[in-house]
């Protein structure tokens, strides 16, 4: 057998015994090391793992008993055979108590020595096996508990609620999200049946039918239901199948979709609102065209001309609305697509003011720009920033009666650039101020005064300000004027 040579350490102060043992053992194919006292022997034991230690009891420096004590402190499982000149039962028992496996009374012959060594090696092999088994078992248990802990941690940190139910209908697992969704504490739920704990009849029905699946083909059922706390839940219920293809329970995965539903509804409301807003001007244009084509206005060319003008105005409003909708979708798009650069706010506002100068002049408005001190650049998308101020300035001009003032003030605060757009216009009621930044909202006084608008400009302005980590505020008094304040953070350009 190509097994490794067994290694034996012989510790004895008598040279004759050391070399005698060495000779006999080496002749029988063992590898032998020797030490002349306990201390040297111990050093060797610490440094190397021997299969068998053969040690004398009576030695100077460190005797066999002391050595046994030291070895037990090492917590090594070693096979120790004690050589003793006093073949007394007492010595043997004492050595045995201290962890020796066997004893060899002096004087001994080679056969006696070899028999003891062989027996010791058998024991050593057995110890090894036990040790390996134990290591194996320990490792398995560690893996087992790690695996369990890991799975639990994963389940517990899921953003979906997980509810496992056994074949008897008892809840056996409920993760924190499931407790949150069902508003049930884990302690209250575990071990109780789903029938006692759950309230929604559709959910219960799906669980029952999932548990009844025979020869299950792992079909999961999906359903949506509302909890009594007004949350919309999407549930997916799947039978748990064992190796024998039997259903041993069911697992329900619960997702709170309340917020998604809200967004869905907002989207569809928005679409129907937009459709209506697009349809109204087209209906008016169609109506005017019908009048003209049906000849109702033939006798009155002046009226006919007015109607064509009105149609054109509605078409114009429609284009403005569509432009605003496009702006809105542009600002909705991910910022990553936009080029952000160091922008001089004073320049951008100046450009917008020049663009609207003519419109202000036509109403004899006093349109001015003031900037106080050094205004640092901010990181922004230039087109968006222009659109933001253009919206606010054109609004100010639109809602300010003739001979009024529109003033733009730009100033640096500690960490922000602040732009105030101040007008002496019709103002905004307190009620309307709450909604002024909502999409399609139009203040009643603006509607009453027949000032046209899409109701989107300010919601676009707000989005742009927020996209640049800033914000927009309004202060206003009806009849006296409004101030829109845009505050944008100064971001050090990198």
């Amino acid at each position, binding site marked *: 057998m190509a097994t490794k040579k067994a290694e034996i350490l012989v510790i004895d102060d008598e040279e004759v015994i050391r070399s005698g043992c060495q000779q006999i053992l080496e002749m029988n194919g063992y590898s032998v090391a020797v030490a002349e006292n306990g201390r040297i022997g111990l050093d060797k034991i610490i440094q190397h793992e021997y299969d068998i230690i053969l040690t004398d009891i009576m030695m100077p420096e460190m005797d066999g008993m002391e050595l046994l004590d030291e070895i037990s402190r090492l917590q090594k499982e070693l096979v120790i055979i004690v050589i003793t000149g006093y073949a007394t039962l007492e010595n043997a028992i004492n050595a045995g108590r201290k962890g020796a496996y066997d004893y060899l009374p002096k004087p001994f012959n080679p056969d006696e020595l070899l028999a003891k060594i062989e027996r010791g090696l058998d024991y050593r092999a057995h110890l090894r096996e036990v040790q390996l088994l134990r290591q194996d078992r320990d490792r398995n248990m560690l893996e087992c508990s790690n695996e369990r802990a890991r799975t639990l941690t994963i389940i517990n940190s899921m953003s979906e609620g997980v509810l496992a139910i056994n074949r008897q209908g008892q809840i056996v697992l409920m993760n924190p999200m499931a407790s949150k969704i069902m508003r049930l504490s884990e302690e209250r739920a575990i071990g109780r049946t789903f029938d006692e704990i759950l309230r929604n009849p559709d959910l219960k029905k799906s669980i029952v039918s999932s548990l009844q699946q025979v020869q299950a083909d792992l079909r999961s059922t999906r359903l949506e239901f509302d909890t009594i706390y007004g949350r919309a839940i999407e549930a997916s219920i799947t039978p748990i199948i064992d190796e024998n293809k039997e259903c041993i329970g069911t697992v329900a995965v619960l997702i709170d979709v309340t917020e998604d539903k809200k967004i869905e509804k907002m989207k569809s409301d928005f679409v*129907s609102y937009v*459709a*209506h807003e697009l*349809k*109204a*001007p087209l*209906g*008016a244009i*169609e*109506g*005017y065209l*019908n*009048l003209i084509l*049906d000849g*109702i*206005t033939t006798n009155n060319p002046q*009226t006919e001309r007015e*109607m064509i003008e*009105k149609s054109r105005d*509605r078409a114009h409003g429609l284009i403005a609305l569509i432009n605003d909708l496009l702006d809105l979708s542009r600002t909705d798009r991910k910022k990553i697509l936009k080029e952000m650069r160091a922008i001089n706010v004073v320049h951008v506002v100046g450009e917008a003011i020049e663009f609207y100068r003519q419109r202000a002049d036509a109403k004899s408005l006093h349109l001015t720009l003031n900037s106080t001190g050094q205004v640092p650049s901010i990181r922004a998308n230039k087109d968006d920033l222009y659109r933001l101020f253009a919206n606010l300035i054109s609004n100010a001009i639109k809602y300010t009666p003739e001979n009024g003032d529109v003033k733009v003030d730009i100033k640096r605060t500690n960490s922000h650039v602040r732009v105030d757009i101040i007008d002496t216009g019709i103002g905004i009621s307190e009620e309307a101020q709450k909604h002024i930044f909502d999409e399609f909202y139009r203040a009643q006084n603006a509607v009453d005064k*027949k000032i046209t608008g899409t109701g989107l400009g300010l919601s676009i302005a707000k989005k742009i300000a927020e996209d640049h980590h800033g914000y927009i505020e309004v202060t206003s008094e009806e009849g006296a004027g409004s101030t829109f304040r845009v505050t944008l953070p100064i971001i050090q350009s990198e």
Partner: protein
Amino acid sequence: MAKRILLIDDDPDFIEINKTILQSGGYETDTASSSAEAMTKIGANDYDLVIIDLMMEELDSGFTLAYGIRDSARTRDWPILMLTSVQEKTGFSFDLATDQSWMKVDDFAAKPLRAAELLQRVERLLNRSN
């Protein structure tokens, strides 16, 4: 004497269009752009017919106005024509045969109406009330 018709719509262009059509048919018209303005005019004047746009301000303001007209003894028998563009906004559609009991209107039609059809409907309602 020319029949007087009150036109209620919050869209000035639709008022303009329908007014032109009605005037071309020889009717006298009065207009209101909100329910409140309409109630004031109804309180002060007599009309032979009222044309209401359902989509004014709030979804139910056209109905509320119709109920208001039916509530007063003086105005109870005035024919009401309701114009609506409500279908595409709410997916809600009306059937005169089944909904008239609660709608309290005599006729309704989708906007916009061609001149001939509007005049035809108006004439029918006025003849019926005579």
